[in-house]
């Protein structure tokens, strides 16, 4: 584990060296560090953000307690983080098991703008793409880029499809898409280059809700294929 500065008011705890070898274990380790630092509530820390193999710590240097041994806020906070993580590894480690969230997805052609391209690239029928995509098990690696956007691992390797050469200027909210080896869901209308193969009626992000995002890092995700009628009835 390494701790390195992210400018003068944030730092990054690099929890694992390699993510891809064992994404499941890597994510669990990162989330353990995230929860431990959350519980430590170190004065001067403003917020935390986990992503893949790192946990970012945003802080106010003026509110970090300094000592003679650690004259700079970065050094002091690094020492506090290391000590918080050592105490954790001595004590209990696991925390709550991840939640499982079911996301209904309609794969009707009206929503599946790029399903034909994905099927052609994978060399299988559109029905087969939908069957494999909707029966796979996914996990949220992190939420970010835009508010509420979940980066999911677990896409069956045969469905990996390169991003579109020219990104769409507008992808509708709720679009379920494949970008390279990843799959994700656009919470709000936005530009994007991923291949759209379906749409969920759920609002993944709503600023009037607390918390505003349905999904958080670590969640297990199952997709449930729904009809156009059910899509309309579930629409939020």
């Amino acid at each position: 584990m390494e701790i390195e500065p992210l400018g003068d008011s944030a730092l990054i705890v690099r929890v694992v060296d390699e993510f891809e070898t064992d994404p499941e274990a890597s994510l669990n380790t990162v989330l353990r560090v995230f929860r431990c630092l959350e519980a430590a509530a170190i004065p001067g820390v403003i917020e935390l953000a986990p992503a893949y193999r790192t946990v970012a710590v945003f802080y106010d240097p003026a509110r970090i307690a300094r000592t003679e041994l650690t004259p700079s806020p970065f050094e002091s906070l690094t020492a506090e983080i290391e000590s918080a993580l050592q105490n954790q590894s001595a004590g209990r480690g696991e925390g709550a098991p991840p939640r499982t969230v079911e996301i209904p997805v309609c794969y009707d052609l009206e929503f599946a703008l790029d399903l034909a391209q994905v099927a052609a690239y994978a060399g299988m029928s559109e029905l087969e793409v939908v069957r494999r995509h909707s029966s796979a098990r996914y996990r949220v690696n992190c939420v970010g880029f835009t508010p509420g956007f979940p980066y999911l691992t677990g896409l069956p390797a045969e469905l990996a499809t390169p991003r579109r050469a020219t990104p769409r200027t507008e992808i509708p909210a709720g679009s379920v898409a494949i970008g390279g080896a990843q799959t994700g869901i656009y919470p709000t209308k936005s530009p994007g280059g991923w291949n759209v193969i379906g749409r969920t009626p759920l609002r993944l992000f709503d600023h009037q809700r607390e918390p505003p995002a349905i999904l958080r890092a670590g969640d297990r995700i199952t997709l449930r294929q729904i009809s156009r009628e059910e899509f309309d009835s579930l629409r939020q």
Partner: protein
Amino acid sequence: MNVTVASAGFLTSVQDLGRTGFRQSGVSSGGALDAHAMRVANALVGNDDNAAGLEATLGRLRLRFEDECIVAWCGGAFTVRIGDEDLPPGHAGLVRAGDELVVAAPNEGSRAWLAISGGVEVPLVLGSRATDLRGNFGGYEGRTLRDGDMLPLFKERRFPSRRGKDGDLEIAAPWVSEWSAPTPWAATAHRDRFLRIVRGASWDRFTPDAQTSLVTASFTVTPDSDRMGARLDGPNLDRIDSGDLLSEAVAPGTLQVPPSGQPILLLGDCQTIGGYPKIAHVITVDLPIAAQLWPGDRIRFREVALAEAQQLLLEREDDFARFRIGLDLHRSS
């Protein structure tokens, strides 16, 4: 208690010091691109640091006041008038009922932060009154201001002391304070734009030529720049390796380098995570200069140690605390 937006100008939005606590849901900090300028302006009118004010881009803003208020602003080289009276940056000024405040186009720099006593009364959304222009929430209906908008103000005021012998406010003459905030805080547009940087996590992934170019060459701000980031045009910053990086946190001030080799300086509305290598970060005390950049501006970078960057920030925070105490003493005298 309302302010009417007679002319909304080029791009004006309600901002405070930004939104914290939702980064893990992908919500960026946002807020005034120069949070320090917003804070100083708020202090000048007797507001809390985090009161909501206005961020005016390129000026051309006209506001009409229904009630007497104290106003102050900090930022680029703008001319601001209350009626016919000049209101220089970093000074407090009295606006009387019916007065018009005009922020003209800037001679240099691009943005100004205007504080109004009481603060703009818009609902807290996810703990902040800042407008998230990408997510279309917060601020005034989640959008930039338009001509004719009515901005409500909080009634609670802590006016600077300017009462007459009988205790009444002396409102006969236009009033602009003689005292002011330190000029480097109030007027932040500079002809020589040297931004100090600390090394980023990916510094060693760049060629020695790239590392040298970053601190010797000049970079020009390109037109596709906004509150998310300033795109820069300069010598290509080439990497040693070309492997993909896993996405991780970025922050305002981060200098990230996409495959084109042309760096992007991230600003307050930047995304929460990114996968491009981070060659360096502009230090927090120099973000006010970054917040004034406009297409065509040229900038240079100079490297400092992290300990120095943090020391400069701690000194500024001490100075700001003293400034606030000084203002309070002045008001109660």
